[in-house]
């Protein structure tokens, strides 16, 4: 599903975030990405979603060569990837359901059908009674659930999560991780960047450890 082959990412200014990374992630895998902050976890995720481009090496996602992807094709790539951010990136001028329905609006789906699907996803993340609430009035854990609902509503085959539990206390974090396990069980490919060793222990799965931009160890 995802294949890195000798991928290097150097930012303007010379900082090398990833150095010669080679890595294959199969369809339906659950992979944890670990390492210190600054080890290159976020950069790796950004490359997959084509938010950043590799400086050298070849990266392919679902059979598409990301290096050669045209600017116009990027949105269509992203519609097949659910992105979950540490800072949630919700829009604060609209309520929960309007945030969640946004990817379906972008895809141009029928509004009534979209709302039905959004409601189903909001139910799945346990926020059904809060669909009219505004993000400001939600706790950090609830905001993260909205972010997850928004990532899921398009039914993507690939979920990328960057420190999804980074700002949450242990109880919320465990809930979120349990949710991820459910997605894994129904066949979604998951790539989760995290420090949270307890979560990794609870879920199992493959661990890819990054150290200063290099893949240090890969363990099943």
């Amino acid at each position, binding site marked *: 599903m995802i294949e890195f082959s000798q991928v290097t990412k150097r930012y303007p200014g010379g900082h090398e975030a990833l150095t010669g990374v080679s890595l294959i992630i199969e369809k339906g895998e659950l992979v944890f990405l670990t390492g210190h902050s600054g080890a290159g976890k976020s950069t790796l995720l950004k490359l997959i*979603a084509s*938010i950043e481009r590799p400086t050298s090496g070849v990266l392919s996602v679902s059979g598409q060569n990301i290096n050669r992807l045209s600017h*116009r094709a990027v*949105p*269509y*790539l*992203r*519609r097949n990837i659910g*992105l979950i951010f540490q800072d949630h*990136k*919700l*829009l604060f*001028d609209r309520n929960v359901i309007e945030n969640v329905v*946004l*990817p379906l*609006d*972008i*895809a*141009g*789906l*029928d*509004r009534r059908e979209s709302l039905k699907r959004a409601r189903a996803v909001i139910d799945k993340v346990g926020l059904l009674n809060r669909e009219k609430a505004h993000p400001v009035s939600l706790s950090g854990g609830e905001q993260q659930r909205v972010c997850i609902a*928004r*990532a899921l509503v*398009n039914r993507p085959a690939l979920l990328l999560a960057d420190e999804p539990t980074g700002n949450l206390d242990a109880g919320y974090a465990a809930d979120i991780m349990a949710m991820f396990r459910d997605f894994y069980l129904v066949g979604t490919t998951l790539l989760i960047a995290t420090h949270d060793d307890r979560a990794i222990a609870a879920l199992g799965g493959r661990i890819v450890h990054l150290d200063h931009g290099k893949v240090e160890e890969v363990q099943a």
Partner: protein
Amino acid sequence: MIGWLRHQKHALGSALRRLRTQPLATLLTALAMGVAISLPSGLYLMLGNLNRLAGGLPAQPEISVFLDAEASAAQKQALATRLKGPDIAEARFAPKEEALAALSMAQDLSDITAGLTENPLPDAWIVRPKASSREDLAKLSDDLAGLPGVAETHVDSQWAERLQAALAIGRTSVWLLSGLFAIALLAISGNAIRAQVLSRRDEILVSRLIGATDRYIRRPFLYLGAVQGLLGGLAAGAVLALAGWMLHKPVAHLASLYGSIFSLLPPTAIEVAAVLGLTTLFGWLGAWISVTRALRQVEASR
């Protein structure tokens, strides 16, 4: 196709919502546009009305040739022959009885003419020459004045000609002003949209992350520009309607002093539609230029 229509509907709805949430900014932008549009369109309307006024006057220049009261029959005959020459398009004899009758028709003068014992007016020819340039007219007029039995000649339509020349300058000015104010319109619309784009930076960035195309992001702003342009056109209509209402009485008064029932004519439906269409187009265009530039900035500053 259905998806495309849904996108349009969605974008229009979102543009209208944005306008509604900022009524004051919307109103001010529409007013600025309205004032800018009302100047050239007002001038255009004024010229149209002046032109209509001038249209009732002889556009073709004419020369009046007044005969000497003591002119002999032979002299009259020679003049009539001369007026059949190749440089004359048409010549009509106006005997002095006709002139007096016309004068008697004018109400205020009928008392005076009634008191006359003999007709003091001269016989005349109304001559329409083939040439229309001022030099040719003056030369012909002088030629005719030099003939025996002719008391005096007069080129009648000089002032109408001058008015036409002035109107031509006015028409050119309308185009010039329209061009300038079209640029102003682009600037006003572009500026308003730019502010909108920058205030929605987060939304744009997030939308991009979850798969929005540039077209999707641009679309509501384009609708916003077009609707804003349309509102500007309507505001211009309101400004002109107000001006027309205020000018109606003074114009009617002035016309009555000239014994005319002239009144200001409003624009035709086609003219109104053209102005509204153009302002909508320019609002859209300003938004397009602005949003394309601003999106590039948002991208660069990510």
